[in-house]
């Protein structure tokens, strides 16, 4: 029973990681953009939601919905005026620019909000639980997982069922040729980053509700998100969910053996998957 519970908790944790990773997976898959500022953008989103909640007294969920257009615009602008200029075959320039962005964001948030830990209050929801077959499952983790699932399904629909999705994939293959199809690569990339930022806002909502955050907390989460994206396979959204779950389960199982091994176990799972499948679980035919 303990093991069943451990694994279920791991799967739910995986939902959180997948949520952190989904936006990353989107920009990574479409633009080969290794966004080192992703974690800090999530923290920024959390502060935005917090601000809305404290200023207007809205429920966090409504506040997140209100924050989404702002975050979309931020992503759009960021991509259009900054990141587009460094995209190319070489992964380093975007890596460095987003690293710079990460440093700037962290310290700007520090100046703006101080180093105090904050939390988005969600009232009784944060400790609520339901009993399923003798297991106490937190409502918040279940919601997190459900949101991750919804995000992945939504993105998949967008990607594989719409012409915008085709344009995303085409541009990711070859921006120059895509422009010959009437696609504005710069605009498409900006839309993609905008959409990624909407997902970031959802991730921020759960990050902010489940635990404390402060301006420095972003990077620590980034590595799990990257692991989820990479073991899932570049550009595969279901893969990202699977990757998140693998890391989550590895962590809880590792911790159940000994808490010293919790984080290590997640990393080891990542390394082992890559050892067996160097291009991830669901690699794209060409990349």
């Amino acid at each position, binding site marked *: 029973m303990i093991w069943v519970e451990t694994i279920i908790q791991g799967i739910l944790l995986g939902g959180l990681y997948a949520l952190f990773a989904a936006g990353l997976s989107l920009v990574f898959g479409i633009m080969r953009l290794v966004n080192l500022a992703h974690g800090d953008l999530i923290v920024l989103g959390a502060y935005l939601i917090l601000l809305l909640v404290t200023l207007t007294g809205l429920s966090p969920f409504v506040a997140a919905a209100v924050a989404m257009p702002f975050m979309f615009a931020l992503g759009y602008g960021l991509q259009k005026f900054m990141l587009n200029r460094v995209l190319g075959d070489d992964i380093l320039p975007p890596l460095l620019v987003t690293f710079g962005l990460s440093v700037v964001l962290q310290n700007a948030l520090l100046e703006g909000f101080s180093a105090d830990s904050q939390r988005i209050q969600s009232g009784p929801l944060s400790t609520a639980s339901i009993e399923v077959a003798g297991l106490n499952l937190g409502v918040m983790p279940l919601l997190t997982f459900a949101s991750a699932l919804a995000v992945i399904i939504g993105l998949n629909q967008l990607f594989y069922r719409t012409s915008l999705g085709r344009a995303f994939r085409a541009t990711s293959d070859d921006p120059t040729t895509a422009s010959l199809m009437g696609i504005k690569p710069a605009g498409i990339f900006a839309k993609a980053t905008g959409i990624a930022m909407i997902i970031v806002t959802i991730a921020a909502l759960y990050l902010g509700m489940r635990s404390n955050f402060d301006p420095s907390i972003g990077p620590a989460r980034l590595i799990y998100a990257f692991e989820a994206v*990479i073991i899932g396979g570049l550009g595969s959204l279901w893969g990202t969910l699977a990757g998140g779950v693998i890391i989550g389960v590895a962590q809880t199982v590792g911790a159940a053996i000994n808490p010293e091994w919790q984080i290590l176990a997640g990393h080891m799972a990542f390394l082992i998957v890559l050892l067996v499948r160097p291009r991830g679980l669901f690699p794209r035919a060409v990349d």
Partner: protein
Amino acid sequence: MTNAHSDYSVQTRTKASSISSVVAVLLIVLAIALPAFASRSLIQDMFFILTMLVLAQFWNLLAGYGGLVSVGQQAFVGIGAYAMFSVVILMGFDPVPSILIAGVAALLLAIPTAFFAFRLQGAYFAIGTWVIAEVVRLLVAQWKAVGGGTGTSLPRTATREMWFTETIETLFGVRSAAARDILAYWLAVVLAVATIAGIYWLLRTKRGLGLAAVRDNIEAAKSVGVDAVRMKWTVFLVSAFGTGIAGGLIYMQKARISPDAAFSLQDWTAYVIFIVVIGGMGTIEGPILGVLVFFILQSLLADYGSWYLMALGVIGITIMLFAPRGLWGLFSDRTGIELFPVRRRLTGGPLSNTPPSSKEE
């Protein structure tokens, strides 16, 4: 086309490079003599500059020449430093020779790392090396004998009785702490000179050509007989060894270690990448220029706390956006000056009527 084969010859030397080799020798002599008249704070600044330069050169060798963008070099700094600390603390070695052990430890770690990471490409490689460094950090944090997650300090007996310090104390008439700084500085000078000379030598041999070929197009390189795998192994192991030595030396001077500090992504990889990219990747001059810029920024702004870091971030972004080949790239594109030229230029025959540096019309 006539078959009157005229005499061809190959040149790598340029006028600037001949001048710079003379200047280099003078600089080295000056660097060695520096402690005789410089203040201690200058010596320490120089130590910082030189060790960061070494890290930057090795990262540049990996990424700029080998095409291996590693985000996990902190693993080698950390393992080197910890190896040095552990033989000093647990086995009573002297710290100075232990620096070599630091390099060997990093080399040993690099072997399994390479086995794994070479299966990965591009961004996968970058993230893979980062995770490996995390794993090593977490493992070292479990090593209770050197303080676990808390960290530890070099025993004071070991630092006080370190090789050469007494000689330096009497030579310059300074206290032992200052003597240790001078010792560390000299070791850093030796390491930096050896690093630059070694890398330059490597690039001038045919291995340098092979490296460039592998970076450009690995399939084609294999098809013309370049052993791509061996090339990658060579640069990876050499970089790890050098990075480990630098790690040992840096922590010999710091005398205190903890896993979070020694395996810091920010200090030992992110800043190093920043230095290389600001200066100009894929050149030897780039990291030299980059480390100077980085140092100047740090001394001007470090007291402004978070504003300093913000400024650093903004500068990094700006340079990437407006001078993607770095400051040295910007400079040498304009002037054509190369201090460490590696380009093989064919002259003679029908080429002799066009002087090498003139641009096509």
